[in-house]
């Protein structure tokens, strides 16, 4: 286990809590019809995104999925950008053209996904390929859901990255459902880690609700990839505590399962761990929460004041040069 400074431990807490509180704000906005598209929560699985992204270094590149808001925050994306984006305002990173985490900022090492699941494994393999060709030592981190491991593009991208020995780390988020579909109807294997065997790359299974474990596993995988030893798949076991999106009450998920996983909440757990290990006091955590609340308040105000884009934006940037 790499030694983290107290500040780093607290930073991890900050990102976990920021993710949760920002999403809560988004839920409110969704209920007020201000978040116009769907809203996909990461409740209960915030540690997978935060812990993994925290293992990257500057210059590394990450592509999140819809439930990886926390990873974006770790990369330096500001809540106001996220709020504007979800509310389709002109100050969002896409000026309202695309939704949720579908935005990119190469300067902060973020490449936004598209909705077609699996495709980003192929695209991020290409980013990793370029890194290799350019002899840059950067590592590429991306995510895949349990359900999305069934896509052909996941397979093609993983196999491509493996055979070209590319610096790609893939976090396979096993939150046990794909929309209403449990893994038992998605695949005949129990562990997503088994998918890696088809590509001849190492895989690990990690408790996804343990942010430090996720961080540590990713850190090692990233280091390995940076050394030129190729891709790694890390399966993080977790649970989707809300429906697929806010409209879905997930009646199809057994209550007991939810109750069981509720007890494993990654934030509660990390709070306790910090306290038990005496890395933080209740007051430390309180202070962080207050800082977040203040930040969110300001960003929310900014976002709410941001106008919708002018309709002329519709026509911008289809091609490099307007024809």
């Amino acid at each position, binding site marked *: 286990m790499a030694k983290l400074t107290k500040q780093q431990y607290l930073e991890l807490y900050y990102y976990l809590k920021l993710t949760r509180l920002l999403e809560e704000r988004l839920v409110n906005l969704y209920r007020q019809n201000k978040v116009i598209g769907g809203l996909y929560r990461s409740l209960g699985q915030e540690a997978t995104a935060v812990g993994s992204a925290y293992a990257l270094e500057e210059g590394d590149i990450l592509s999140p999925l819809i439930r990886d808001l926390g990873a974006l925050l770790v990369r330096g994306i500001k809540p106001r950008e996220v709020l504007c984006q979800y509310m389709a305002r002109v100050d969002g990173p*896409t000026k309202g*053209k695309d939704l949720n985490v579908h935005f990119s900022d190469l300067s902060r090492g973020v490449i936004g996904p598209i909705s077609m699941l699996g495709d980003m494994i192929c695209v991020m393999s290409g980013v990793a390929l370029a890194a290799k060709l350019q002899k840059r030592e950067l590592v590429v981190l991306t995510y895949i859901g349990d359900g999305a491991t069934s896509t052909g593009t996941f397979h093609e991208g993983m196999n491509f990255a493996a055979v070209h020995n590319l610096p790609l780390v893939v976090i396979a988020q096993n939150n046990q459902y794909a929309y*209403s579909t449990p893994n038992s109807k998605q695949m005949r294997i129990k562990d997503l880690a088994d998918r890696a065997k088809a590509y001849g790359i190492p895989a690990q299974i990690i408790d996804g609700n343990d942010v430090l474990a996720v961080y540590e596993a990713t850190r090692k995988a990233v280091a390995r990839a940076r050394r030129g030893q190729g891709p790694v798949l890390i399966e993080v076991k977790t649970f989707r505590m809300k429906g697929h999106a806010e409209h879905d009450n997930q009646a199809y998920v057994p209550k007991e399962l939810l109750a069981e996983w509720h007890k494993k909440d990654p934030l509660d757990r990390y709070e306790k761990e910090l306290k038990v290990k005496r890395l933080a006091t209740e007051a430390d955590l309180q202070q962080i929460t207050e800082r977040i609340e203040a930040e969110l308040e300001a960003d929310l105000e900014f976002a709410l004041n941001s106008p919708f884009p002018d309709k002329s934006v519709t026509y911008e940037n289809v091609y490099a040069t307007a024809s």
Partner: protein
Amino acid sequence: MVTPVKAQAKQETAVTMVEALRQALDEEMARDERVFILGEDVGVYGGAFKVTEGLLEKYGEERVIDTPISESAIVGAACGAALMGMRPVAEFQFMDFISCAFDIIINYAAKARYRNNLSVPIVLRGPCGGNVHGGPFHSQNPEAYFLNVPGLKIVEPSTASDAKGLLKAAIRDEDPVIFLEHKYLYRLPRVKEVLPADDYLVPIGKAAVRREGKHLSIITYGAMVYTALDAAEKLAQDGIEAEVVDLRTLLPLDEETLLNSVAKTNKVILLHEATRTGGPAGELAARIAEKAFEYLDGPIVRVTAPDTPVPYSPPLEEEFLPQVSDVEQAARELVKY
């Protein structure tokens, strides 16, 4: 406003397009045990838009099959099952994802009869279109991608009764049918309709004249039928009588109805929500300019979405989607020509 289907008895209450589609599936599954449904979340959840709701409970897991997230496998499995005499109806959660199965649709399903004398009676259905703030990947109109693929049929209903009758016809069709359901119409109050009580089909390949007129024809389909009708209503106030043709089937085209309308009005607007360049209006324009040239008294005018992806933010999406005022304005200019 909607051409009534000829049928005596009626159901008791008006239903949405979603319910009409559900009825079509239900009736066909009851009628023919070879019919089954497969797709992502179509079972327990009843589909992302609840079109298959209740069917799992009624017909069981063997006939309402939840699949992995694998559009090519879904279509491939439908094809294979069809070869064995089944009648699969595959759902795409959003029609945007039909692109993920493009190859197997155009290369296996569409060509099997021609190449190998095999029947592939499959229906590929799901929600298309914008106006619900779905952004670039949940709003596409994919029809033009498939228009140049011989062997396929492409259908898009605009009314609840057509949705039911066409889906039933698609399920009974011997060829692969791409069935596009405009999600903006799914639960739109004005689309609610009291359906015929008895078993009925709406034939694939037949357009419907939704409104008669003599000064110009607006040729369209899907959600844009309502845009056309609203524009026609406004134009009528100034004595401009627009005929509105709802194509209903894009492949094969009902050339007769199309050309008859042009022959009658001599002026034509082609209206679609798909983007302009390479969109379905091209084929329509080509047919008209080739086969009804002598009837034309003015340019063939296209009113379509612009050549951009579908943007998310409301003012952008509104700008993107053809509006009643766009059609109205184009019509006023055209009649003056």
